[in-house]
């Protein structure tokens, strides 16, 4: 019985298609924003990943409260892939498994960038991301690993 199963496993490994190509993503720059009067001006990519992975993360003396864009949005998929290092399917598994292990659930997903701007502008500690074109005066764009949008090392820049 075990031998049959090993054969099935091997056959699956051999015949299954390889990972599909990543869909084309919009060539927009994403920016990470906090409230205008927040003390934080830059976050490391590792801290950004921790905050959006459900780990307690403090910056500028304030516990960060991350807000996501909807799981179905291209911006969310791109942010998750670049910052969290996970494809959309892996992100879903990650949050389900994390809750079963007793950890916190996923950051709250807001319905649009408009909401992200308003929530982040209102609450110290709130942090979100959105297309650079939708930034308003109520929020502040922060650097990632010291790089601001437009600089060479910025990870969420337009392609």
């Amino acid at each position, binding site marked *: 019985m075990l031998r049959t199963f090993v054969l099935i496993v091997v056959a*699956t490994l051999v015949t299954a298609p390889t990972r599909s190509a990543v869909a084309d993503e919009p060539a927009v720059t994403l920016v990470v924003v906090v409230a205008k009067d927040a003390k934080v001006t830059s976050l490391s990519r590792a801290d950004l990943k921790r905050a959006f992975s459900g780990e307690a993360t403090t910056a500028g003396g304030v*516990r960060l409260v991350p807000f996501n864009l909807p799981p179905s949005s291209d911006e969310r998929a791109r942010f998750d892939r670049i910052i969290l290092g996970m494809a959309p399917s892996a992100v879903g598994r990650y949050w*389900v498994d994390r809750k079963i292990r007793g950890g916190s659930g996923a950051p709250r997903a807001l319905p649009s960038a408009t*909401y992200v701007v308003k929530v982040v502008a209102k609450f110290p500690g709130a942090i979100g991301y959105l297309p650079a074109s939708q930034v308003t005066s109520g929020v502040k764009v922060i650097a990632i690993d010291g790089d601001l949008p437009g600089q060479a090392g910025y990870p969420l820049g337009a392609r």
Partner: protein
Amino acid sequence: MTVQPSGLALLAAMSLLTPAALAQPASPDPEEVPASPDEPDATDADLAVLDLAATDEAHLQIFGFMDASWTGYRLSAGSLWRGYLPTETTFGIGNLNLYLTRSLAERWRSFFEVRFTYAPATATRVDGSANHATAPDPANAQRPLTWGGVSIERAYLEYDATDRLTVQAGAFLTPYGIWNVDHGSPAIVPIAPPWIIGEELFPKQQTGLHLYGKRAVGGYTLAYHATVSNGRGPFQAFRDLDGKPALGARLELTAPWLGLTHLGVSGYRGRFTDRPADSLGADAMGNLIVVERPGVSYDEWSAGADVLIERGPLRLQAELLANQRSYRDGERALQSGLAVPDGRFVGGYLLAGYRFDRFWQVMPFVSSELARLRPGAVSHDVAAYIETAGLNFRPVPNVVLKVQATALTVKNVPLTGVVEQLSLQAAWAF
């Protein structure tokens, strides 16, 4: 829903103020999207009320997981396993676990997990007959109602002191290895835990204090756990019969090696004591005395090392565990009337899986494990070898379908032969 502490008022109020959003159909993604898009005025209204609604309270969150399976065994003729394992194929409900969590205030969280079981109806009496565990059902003309029980898996209060220190007080899962933390059937790759995990070389649960935290530097994270508890015992959740606290610790390094590598070491030291209650009696002169009844007590230590490598779709994990048991004078366990010697239980497993992004995200997996059992009163050098191969499907993040075949061989025990098991399981989180 997020339970980040400082956003409690915000999130609670948003949920209350946008009931339409809560009525959205369930999405495979476990997140909630609270309101319809493109309504900036609604957001303004929400935000205006939020300040008034800042009560530091959030909703009670209820979620959980369960699994149902089908299992068949093939045992050789005359195998001693026939007295322990079912010879018929069978369907069954395994886990039905419910979590209830609530953020009590900023940085404070209540968490508990219970498992509903059919026990004691699943138990057998010493004569082998079924324990039906029935009672007259007043809602159904007093017909027999099979009743079950509840097992408290975890129940603790958590205080998130800093980014690097969180304290849990209550009953928690012992932080060791990979498997005991993964715990839930949708989160684990095969259907059943390895033998050495099921044997609890470390206690599965403890009751006491659990301190943990982590420090991240660059791509590296060092996490620690420290526990002080009642230790192992028949009533460990509410009474420590020997009054000797058990101590445990774990260190885990996560590094960007070979993709992402987690290395962990764990240790535990404690005393098990099972002492029947003393009773009142009379001496030869008829005086009332307290009669002490003999019990079982041993000191134990456990050690473990584990590694988990996640390289894209590839997952490799291995654990090595050991437990040493040393009986105290006059409190040694008996087996068939003979004293059980001190001894060590050692075991380990290796599991490899590869997650494809097609075929319901199928993950073929294989595992191999070895368990060298501690000596018994009449058995020595008993070892078990277990080989498993299977497929783990995840059509949506909340649902996992598994099929696996397992072969178990026990050395140095006559008439056991090879036990073959075929199992299917559906596990889902809700």
